[in-house]
């Protein structure tokens, strides 16, 4: 950037700072930062300003590590990207107005205007990219975490396994349920599998369809499914929907399901003397 511009900014640093701080205070509520203490907000603003200003002086056209580190720290604290972008936009507005006050020749102003735009836009872009990457990262980590929780098959007794299902079942998860059921049946040599749907909030035709298909597949590899944990309201909606679950045994609770699973494998629980 032009040496002259930088010089001019240095001369007016205090004024730019004061005006910028004032602007940032007025937009505080827009970024839902009211519940952060005044001091913390002010300190962050000062740090942000110093980083931008140092950046300007160093004449770089890319966001440096200092700025990206600062941004990352704020993202982790839950601050919004809009705080950073608006901070930079305010900074641009203020330095431009300072520029117009000091420089009267219109062609020169136009050149400087252009220069400042070229300086600030890549920084904003980089911050947006950084934040998008941050989000994508979080989403993909959570996706993996969710997948791990998705459909565990737990061998409880010899020949008896339980699959507890919690949360919404979408197509991807339904596929995992089917796969885990079939590989688990072979691996644990299960004869009876209890599918527990206590934690499934809504059983619509798609969910029912997937459960029916899964249990049919389990039957083909020589085991049997018992559907347990059917809450009263779910039972009523299944009847209203007209879904036929007559093909396979159901029980209200996991406990009752376990009893009949033991019966089916010719065992029972007795109290010791």
């Amino acid at each position, binding site marked *: 950037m032009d040496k002259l511009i930088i010089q001019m900014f240095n001369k007016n640093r205090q004024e730019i700072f004061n005006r910028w701080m004032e602007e940032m205070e007025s937009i505080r509520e827009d970024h839902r930062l009211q519940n952060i203490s005044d001091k913390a907000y002010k300190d962050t603003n000062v740090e942000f300003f110093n980083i931008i200003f140092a950046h300007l002086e160093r004449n770089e056209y890319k966001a440096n590590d200092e700025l990206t580190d600062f941004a990352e720290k704020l993202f982790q604290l839950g601050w919004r990207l809009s705080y950073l972008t608006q901070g930079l936009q305010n900074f641009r507005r203020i330095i431009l107005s300072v520029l117009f006050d000091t420089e009267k020749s219109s062609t020169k102003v136009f050149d400087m205007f252009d220069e400042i735009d070229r300086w600030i836009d890549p920084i904003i872009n980089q911050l947006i990219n950084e934040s998008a990457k941050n989000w994508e990262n979080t989403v993909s980590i959570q996706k993996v975490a969710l997948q791990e929780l998705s459909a565990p098959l737990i061998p409880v007794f010899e020949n008896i396994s339980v699959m507890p299902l919690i949360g*919404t079942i*979408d*197509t991807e998860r339904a596929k995992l349920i089917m796969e885990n059921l079939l590989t688990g049946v072979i691996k644990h040599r299960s004869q009876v599998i209890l599918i527990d749907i206590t934690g499934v*909030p*809504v*059983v*619509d*035709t*798609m969910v*029912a*369809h997937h459960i*029916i298909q899964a249990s049919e597949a389990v039957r083909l590899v020589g085991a049997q499914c018992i559907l347990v944990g059917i809450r*009263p*309201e*779910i039972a*009523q*909606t299944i009847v*209203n*929907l*007209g*879904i036929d679950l007559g093909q396979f045994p159901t029980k209200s609770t996991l406990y009752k399901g376990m009893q009949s699973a033991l019966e089916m494998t010719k065992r029972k629980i007795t109290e010791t003397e």
Partner: protein
Amino acid sequence: MNIQSCVEVRNEWDIVKARQEGRNIAKELGFGSVDQARITTAISELARNIYLYAGKGRIEISNLDSSGKIGLRIIASDDGPGIKDIRKVMEDGFTTSGGLGAGLPGVKRLMDEFSIDSKENEGTEIITTKWLR
């Protein structure tokens, strides 16, 4: 009638969002847990139909108050391919996607009022209401 919530359905997770909204509004209006389950299941079916057959559309949920009767209305609309034979989709067991074919007739049984309007290549609108008893 005032619209309480409007959810754009574009992917599978929007279905979850739509029925969450439905459950909250049903709870607010004072529906019992069985009716809450009926309403959320109905929304789930309608939203899934939008996602499966039209690709995108919207679910509007509003509350009704007509001469002291309180109700919840769901409007599911899309600009998708439309339904060729409405009488057929209202039959139990009819499906074009390999599902159970219980969706629309099921919704009709879950709710109190049900109307469907569809034009080929123009879209479909389903309006259904549940009254608080």
